């Protein structure tokens, strides 16, 4: 092979790669009778694996209700939080139902349905903590734990600029570390924190208060992530969300987990 041939080949491959990237993908002709749903499985009570390894949680039950409403067969796969968006883009699954906030940065990469719930972030501290209120001054010099690559981590960094914010791989690890006293406070969704504080594992700590949900960070609530161009599927999900909101199915699922309205206003 000559150098020229190699270069021509390289050029062709590049052109091909560029073409594939910019092609307007559309799912108009696609038959969505089966949908693969990706979730994290480590974010109770929204999505988690129970003792027998089955996926449970609000996200999972909402997903099942939506699938039933759309009359499609759904299968579930779990995926680490960090790799969620690339996995969706690579086609490992078709819909991402994992309590993901609809943010401008994420919207550049993937499409979102309308929100299916919206709850504020909150901060929890050990019961004997000297932190009296969730303000920047009270958290000055303290160590805050949050899950890596989440909106809550960004919120913690922006609300408490003088604190040290440590990024944990999942919620499980920051819970271990507030228990052992390595972090002074943790920031996460109010529901996630409340559920944990109610359990034996959360006996160490108390809720200090909810935090303002800055829309620049939190966007428009929690939505279902889809590949850009899958407009037909997006319409199907949006209609199904409205339908289960209207027919009481959503409330049924919500009441199984929470005693308040998680949909938000």
């Amino acid at each position: 092979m000559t150098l020229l041939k190699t270069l021509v080949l390289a050029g062709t491959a590049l052109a091909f790669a560029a073409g594939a990237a910019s092609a307007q993908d559309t799912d108009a002709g696609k038959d969505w009778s089966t949908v693969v749903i990706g979730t994290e499985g480590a974010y109770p009570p929204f999505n988690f694996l129970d003792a027998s390894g089955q996926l449970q949680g609000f996200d999972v039950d909402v997903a099942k209700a939506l699938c039933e409403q759309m009359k499609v067969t759904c299968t579930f796969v779990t995926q680490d939080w960090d790799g969620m968006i690339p996995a969706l883009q690579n086609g490992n699954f078709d819909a991402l139902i994992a309590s993901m906030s609809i943010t401008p940065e994420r919207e550049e990469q993937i499409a979102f349905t309308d929100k299916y719930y919206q709850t504020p972030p909150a901060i929890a501290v050990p019961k004997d903590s000297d932190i009296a209120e969730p303000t920047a001054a009270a958290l000055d010099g303290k160590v805050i734990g949050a899950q890596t690559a989440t909106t809550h981590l960004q919120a913690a960094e922006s609300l408490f600029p003088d604190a040290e914010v440590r990024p944990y791989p999942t919620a499980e690890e920051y819970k271990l570390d507030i228990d052992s006293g390595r972090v002074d406070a943790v920031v996460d969704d109010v529901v996630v924190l409340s559920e944990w504080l109610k359990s034996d594992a959360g006996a160490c700590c108390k809720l200090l208060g909810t935090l303002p949900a800055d829309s620049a960070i939190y966007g428009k609530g929690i939505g279902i992530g889809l590949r850009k161009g899958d407009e037909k599927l997006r319409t199907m999900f949006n209609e199904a969300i409205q339908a289960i909101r209207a027919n009481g199915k959503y409330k049924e699922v919500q009441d199984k987990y929470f005693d308040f309205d998680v949909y938000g206003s």
Partner: protein
Amino acid sequence: MKNALDPPLAATPPDVLPRRRPGFAGVLALGAWLLAGLSLVAYLAAAWNPDLLARYAPIYLSGLWTTIQLVAISFVAGALISVPVALGRGSKGFVQRDLSTAYVVLFRGTPFIAQLFLIYYGFGQFRDFFETIGLWGFFREPWYCAIFALALNTAAYQAEILRGAVASVPKGQWEGAKSLGLSRLTTLRKVILPQAAIVALRPYTNEVILMVKASAIVAIITVYDLLGETRRAYSRTFDFQTYIWAAILYLLIVELLRHATNFAERRLTRHLRR
């Protein structure tokens, strides 16, 4: 048995080998690499984003610095721990031998991620105990736990490198030195270690290279090194070039190490050149 005084293979200048035209498979392989390299450069040129660079370059550099510190400190600490372990492995006393063998088997036989998790989160469950013995101040900090775990891990590998290298020096060298009236320590320092160093150099470089990459695991205990910062940058931008920049920085580190090793080898083997 191969005599350690024979010049090692790498000391042979490559240009004495007869030059051959590359075969078809070689050209194909080379073409594929060339293609990959060109695509990468083209991709980076197309995705060139000064804002991204201005925003994340300092973060990358601080991550790089964290990686370098972590590897350098743990490697040296591991080297210190590896000396008694290597001595124990070669010892005739079976308490020393069994203890150091158990240490090596344990740390080489289990994944580093498990060791790190147990040392950090596991020890965290026994806070009262560590407070009583006054070590909580050490184990409470993720940074110290990361160094502690990485040093213990690399010590097991380094002990094996050290033991193998010392054992590769023929017994006659010890006997010859003894007949000249040299003390054991002088023999070790002036006769055995310089020869063992030639054998150990490449495995040590391998170990550092593996550590540079294994150190990325410390992100699970919230220490953000080069890869940790990359993941953070990616989670903000969802731009794949964040990973490409990290790959380039890792490649630079490894290339520097490779050249430093070649230089060190030339120095260590200068008496073997004719």
